[in-house]
């Protein structure tokens, strides 16, 4: 992922030791460990920033450390992967000694964009794309190991790259990180990945159907018509009942018919 950083801003970045960076990255994987409906990601943000905050003058026993950790563990919401941008930027702001009011305002402003961009890029784009591409491979007859390995490797290359990029970008830009959110991958990525995922959907559904049905190909024409009708019904019922609940009802009815008859 390319950064749109002004070179001066990067040049001025203080060094964040490799060990501290690794500790933060590892903790980022557990950022949602204490997720709750009151502070959402808040405690996780404090948890991830803690290794960096230890570098405040006076270390973990200083009033500055306690004040910063208390501030950063309050309510926060963002996409879990892009929260790394906030963790990096807020750590830099705290270690640079920015005024607490400025940090609070920045924290509030950052949450929204990191949530919406992450949702569109990852949950509505990258995850369905990787899943559907793997389903297409499955439909083409790939081995179990190949299907699983392709899915996990492809997905996690993007996942980890996003977390690492976010932490580095946040740290390098500090309170000016908003400029980095104009990165082409974040701006145009969701649309491009959306198109690729739509293509993968079209390829994957019939192929996956074919492999699961297996030798019962005589049903294929009827199944394809049923799928088209079923999809139409599910789209029409959107907002009233979710498709997976409807599936449970349909399949439970099939079980009842099959065991009572």
């Amino acid at each position, binding site marked *: 992922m390319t950064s749109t950083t002004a070179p001066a801003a990067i040049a001025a970045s203080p060094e964040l030791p490799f060990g501290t960076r690794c500790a933060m990255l590892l903790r980022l994987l557990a950022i949602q460990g204490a997720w709750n409906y009151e502070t959402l990601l808040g405690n996780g943000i404090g948890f991830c920033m803690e290794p960096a905050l230890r570098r405040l003058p006076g270390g973990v026993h200083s009033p500055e450390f306690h004040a910063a950790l208390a501030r950063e563990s309050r309510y926060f919401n963002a996409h879990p*992967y892009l929260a790394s941008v906030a963790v990096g930027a807020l750590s830099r702001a705290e270690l640079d000694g920015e005024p607490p009011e400025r940090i609070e305002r920045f924290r509030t402003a950052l949450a929204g964009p990191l949530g919406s961009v992450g949702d569109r890029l990852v949950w509505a784009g990258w995850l369905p794309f990787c899943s559907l591409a793997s389903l297409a491979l499955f439909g083409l007859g790939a081995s*179990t190991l190949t299907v699983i390995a392709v899915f996990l490797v492809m997905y996690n290359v993007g996942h980890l790259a996003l977390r690492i990029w976010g932490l580095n970008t946040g740290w390098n830009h500090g309170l000016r990180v908003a400029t980095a959110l104009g990165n082409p991958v974040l701006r145009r990525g969701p649309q491009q990945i959306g198109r690729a995922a739509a293509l993968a959907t079209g390829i994957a559904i019939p192929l996956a159907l074919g492999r699961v049905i297996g030798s019962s190909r005589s049903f294929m024409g009827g199944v394809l018509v049923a799928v088209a009708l079923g999809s139409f019904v599910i789209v029409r019922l959107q907002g009233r009942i979710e498709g997976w609940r409807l599936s449970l009802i349909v399949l439970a009815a099939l079980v009842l018919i099959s065991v009572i008859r």
Partner: protein
Amino acid sequence: MIALDVVPVALLGGVLGLDVVSFPQAMISRPLVAATLGGALIGRPSSGLLLGAALELIALETLPFGASRYPEWGSASVVGGVIFASHPEAAQGAAMTMGMVSALATTLVGGWTMVKLRQLNAVWARKRRAGLEAGSRGTVIELQLMGMTADFVRGAALTAIAFLLLMPIATACVAIWSTDLRLSRAIVVATAASVAGGAAWKLFHSTAGARLFFVGGLALGLFMLFAT
């Protein structure tokens, strides 16, 4: 079914339940992977993959957006994968239906347990408010570790209970199954693909050009299906 059979299934369900939200969200909890691992426990990963693929089509509809409430697929897919893979291939249509129903029922309860866990996390955070406001390092780390441990226990307990309850029911139903097995399998997969079709429309209909890409992909997919 002896208790020892449940232990590896429950442990796998715990680990994959943890992956859904708490740690590390590497998507080993997606049905495609989780059901395959469940099948691998029985020595039949390819059977697990078959059920995982059908479940994955359904799971495309429920992606973990923000603070929304969504089903928990990790533990549920392990239950479904193990149940499906435990039955002989000759009864695949019936076993697949029972595996799917078991997984979907478990995911329904799993989503509810996740909501309860999040409420519990809030209670724990409230009780430790003084420590949090004082910026106590111990409190912040303790909350995180408690949340993750509870999530693992939640996933493991859910998997164990669902497996112990649903496995005998599935076995009994498969034994007296009367619907044609090929038709059963076709109904399962058509239902799953219908949900995937609806989910795809929901995800991509607002993306410029996506419909064209979908139609192109569909033409290619159908060509490959009937050409092979």
